[in-house]
C-alpha cells in the first residue's frame, strides 16, 4: 500500500498506547449540563429557552444567528436552571444554558429519521446538517454546512475525510473508525452528494492499521470512495497537509481548501452527519479521549455536550500523582486550562492531564540556529525569523516572511532544542499583522 504524506513535519511520540485498545464507553449521565451558546467559529447563538423551561434531549435551545453559525441543542432532558455567562475551554466566559437533568433522557419529538440518503437532495442534506448543529469535530469547530456550500466557480471535485488523528494521545477518531466505520462511510456519501462530487478519500495514518482495514471493509463496493494510508507524521491531519498528501494539490496562500477543489471534514463529523440523517438526533454527544500520565484510568468516552471536565475526570478515577497541565484537545494544538469546572463542547476531542515528565518544562535558551524548526515547518516558513520579527513588533518583515501562512501546528516549538516558544510569538505576530490589515482596510 502506498503511504502518502507532505513535506516537513515532525514525529512527536504517539503516546496513544494507553487508550487505543480501549473500546468506547458511555460516560455516566451528568446531573447538570452547562451548554455554551458558542461552541463553533462564527456568530454565537441566541438562547430560545428561558429559566424554568422544561427541555428534552435533542431540543433546540439556541438559534443560529447568521450563515456562519449553527444551532445548539440540549443533551439531556430536564429543567433550565440558569442562563448566564460561564467559563468555557476557550478561556473566556460565554453565555451558557444550564440544565438540570431529570435523568430520564426523554427524546424530543423533533428527533425523527430523515429518510434514506437516496431520497434526499443536496440542499436537504445541507439543511439537516445545519439544523443538527454539526461542526468540525477535529477541534476547530467550523460549521460544517458552510464548508458544504463553496462558491460554484471553485469546481470542488473531491471530499476528504480526515481520519489521520495526528495529534499524539488522542484516540477518539481511531476508536470511532474501528467501532462504527459504516457511519463514517455513510457521512462521506452524504458529503459527496451534498457537494455533487464523485471522489472521496478517507485518510488515515499508518499507525492505525486496524482502522484502515475496518474502513476499507466498510467502504468496499462504495463507488468513488478510497481509503488511503498516510505516513504517521505530525501534522498529517492539518487540512492543507492532508489535501497535499491525498491529491498533491496545494491550497494557495491565503486561500481555502475549495481553492484546491477540495472539501475536508473530520471522520467524527461524518459520523455525526450519519446519525443526524438516520435518527434525526442532532449533535449532543461526542467522543472524548481522556488520557495522560496524570489520570488514573484513561478512557475513550461518549460524553454529552455540557458535561463538566471534573465529572469526566472523576469517572476516569481522578487524577494520578500531580498533573501539571490540563488540556482541552491534543498536546500540540490544544488549550491549557486553569479550571476543570468547564463543559465538554462540540470541539473537545480530548482531555489531557499531563505530568511533569511529559511536559518537559524548561526555560527557553538562545536560538542556536540549528534549523530544525525550518526543517519541520509543514508550510516551509522560517519560524526562527518569524519569532524574532514578531517579538520585536516588526510586523512588515513578519508579513513579508509569510507569517499569515502559519497554521500554528506547533511543530517548530516541539522540535526546538533551545525550547523557545516559537508558535506563541508567531501567533501573536500573526494576530497583530491581521489587526493592522483590518485597520488599513477600515
Amino acid at each position: 500500500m502506498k503511504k502518502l504524506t507532505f513535506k516537513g513535519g515532525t514525529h512527536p511520540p504517539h503516546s496513544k498506547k494507553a487508550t487505543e485498545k480501549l473500546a468506547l464507553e458511555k460516560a455516566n449521565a451528568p446531573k447538570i449540563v452547562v451548554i455554551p451558546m458558542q461552541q463553533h467559529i462564527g456568530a454565537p447563538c441566541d438562547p430560545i429557552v428561558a429559566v424554568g423551561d422544561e427541555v428534552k434531549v435533542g431540543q433546540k435551545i439556541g438559534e443560529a444567528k447568521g450563515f456562519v453559525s449553527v444551532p445548539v441543542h440540549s443533551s439531556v432532558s430536564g429543567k433550565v436552571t440558569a442562563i448566564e455567562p460561564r467559563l468555557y475551554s476557550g478561556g473566556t466566559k460565554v453565555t451558557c444554558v444550564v440544565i438540570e437533568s431529570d435523568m430520564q433522557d426523554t427524546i424530543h419529538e423533533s428527533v425523527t429519521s430523515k429518510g434514506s440518503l437516496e431520497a434526499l437532495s443536496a440542499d436537504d442534506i445541507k439543511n439537516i446538517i445545519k439544523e443538527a448543529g454539526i461542526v468540525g469535530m477535529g477541534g476547530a469547530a467550523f460549521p460544517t454546512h458552510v464548508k458544504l456550500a463553496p462558491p460554484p466557480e471553485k469546481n470542488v471535485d473531491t471530499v476528504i475525510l480526515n481520519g489521520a488523528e495526528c495529534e499524539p494521545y488522542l484516540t477518539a477518531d481511531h476508536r470511532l473508525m474501528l467501532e462504527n466505520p459504516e457511519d463514517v462511510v455513510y457521512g462521506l456519501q452524504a458529503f459527496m452528494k451534498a457537494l455533487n462530487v464523485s471522489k472521496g478519500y478517507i485518510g488515515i495514518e499508518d499507525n492505525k492499521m486496524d482502522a484502515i482495514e475496518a474502513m476499507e471493509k466498510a467502504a468496499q463496493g462504495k463507488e468513488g470512495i478510497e481509503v488511503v494510508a498516510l505516513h504517521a507524521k505530525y501534522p498529517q491531519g492539518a487540512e492543507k497537509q492532508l489535501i497535499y498528501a491525498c491529491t498533491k494539490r496545494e491550497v494557495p496562500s491565503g486561500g481555502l481548501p475549495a481553492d484546491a477543489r477540495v472539501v475536508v471534514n473530520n471522520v467524527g463529523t461524518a459520523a455525526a452527519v450519519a446519525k443526524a440523517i438516520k435518527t434525526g438526533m442532532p449533535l449532543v454527544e461526542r467522543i472524548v479521549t481522556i488520557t495522560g500520565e496524570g489520570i488514573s484510568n484513561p478512557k475513550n468516552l461518549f460524553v454529552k455536550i455540557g458535561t463538566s471536565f471534573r465529572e469526566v475526570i472523576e469517572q476516569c478515577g481522578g487524577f494520578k500523582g500531580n498533573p501539571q497541565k490540563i488540556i482541552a484537545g491534543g498536546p500540540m494544538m490544544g488549550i491549557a486550562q486553569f479550571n476543570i469546572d468547564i463543559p465538554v463542547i462540540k470541539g473537545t476531542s480530548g482531555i489531557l492531564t499531563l505530568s511533569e515528565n511529559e511536559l518537559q518544562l524548561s526555560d527557553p535558551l538562545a536560538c542556536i540556529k540549528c534549523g530544525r524548526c525550518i526543517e519541520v515547518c509543514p508550510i516551509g516558513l522560517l519560524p526562527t525569523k518569524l519569532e524574532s520579527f514578531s517579538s520585536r513588533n516588526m510586523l512588515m518583515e513578519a508579513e513579508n516572511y509569510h507569517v499569515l501562512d502559519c497554521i500554528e501546528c506547533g511543530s517548530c516549538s516541539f522540535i526546538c532544542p533551545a525550547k523557545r516558544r516559537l508558535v506563541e510569538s508567531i501567533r501573536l505576530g500573526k494576530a497583530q499583522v491581521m489587526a493592522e490589515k483590518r485597520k488599513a482596510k477600515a
Partner: protein
Amino acid sequence: MEHGNLVVSSSPHIRSKESVNSIMYNVIIALLPATVAAIYFFRLRAFLLIAVSIIAAIAAEAIILKIRKKPIAINDGSAIITGLLLALTISPAMPLWMAVVGSVVSIGIGKQVYGGLGSNPFNPALVGRAFLIITFPVQMTTWINPIDGLATATPLGLQKMEGIGTGYLELLLGNVGGSLGETSALLLLIGGLYLIYKGIIRWYIPVSYLGTVAAMSLILGSDPIFQLLSGGLMLGAFFMATDMVTSPVTKKGQLIFGIGAGLITIIVRLYGGYPEGVLFSILLMNIFTPIIDKYAMPKIYGEVKSK
C-alpha cells in the same frame, strides 16, 4: 481532588527530548575517538594542549559572562567544544600559552563580543585558530611526527612543497604529521557519521563539501582520495562547517555553503600560499552565511499559485 497550581501556557504542550545540551554533548562524544587518537599519537603534549585549551575556554567564558553580569551558563557544553576543536586544530609542538591565547580569542572575539551562544557569525574555534596561524605562523606550522617525535611536515605540505605523497592507509589511521585532530581521517569520519546517524547534523554540508573537493581535485588533476583524507578536511567538514550557529539554516543554503567551502579549500590548497585551506574556507563561508540564509529560502506551501 482540588487542583490549584495548573500550568497554563501556549501550545504545543509537549517538547522533543533533544536539547541544546544533548546536541553539544553528542558533538563532544563524536570528537572523542579523534581526541583519544591525538593523545595516543602525541602523548602528554597532546593531553596538556587539549586540557589547557578546554580549561582556558571555559574560564574565559565564565569570566566574560561574569563581567557582563549574565548567568554563567558554561554547562551548555559549547565552550568545551570550542576549546576542544581549537586544540584539535593546533600543532602538537605549540607552546601551551599560545593555546590559551587561542582559546581566549575564540571565546572573547569569536563569541562573547557578539552576545554569546547563538549570536556569533563566525565559528569561535576557527576565529581562534585563524588568529593563531596569522599571529604565530612559525609555531603553528612546526609539525612533529607521531612515531618518532621528530620534526616533519604535514602530508599536504610535503605534497605541495616537495611533491612527496603519503599513503592512504597512513592518512586513514593517522600516523602522519599534522594538527592534533587532523591526523586520522578514519576516526573523524566515524565521529561525523555518528552525528549524522544521531540526527544532530544533516548530511548536506559534509557531503557537498567533500564532494566538491573530490570533484574539483579530479578536474584540476590532483588525487581526490589524497585530498579528502589529508589535512583538516574531515575535521572541518563534519565538525566545523556544520556548526549550526554559523552555517545556513536551510538545506539549499547548506548545500551552497558546502560547495563554496569545497571550492575555496581546493583553490587555496592547490594555488594558495598556505598548504591548507579548510580553516579559511569555512571562515570565508561563515562570512557569507547571512546572505545565503537571506536568499536560500524553502519553498512555501501554496506560494506558487498565489497571485
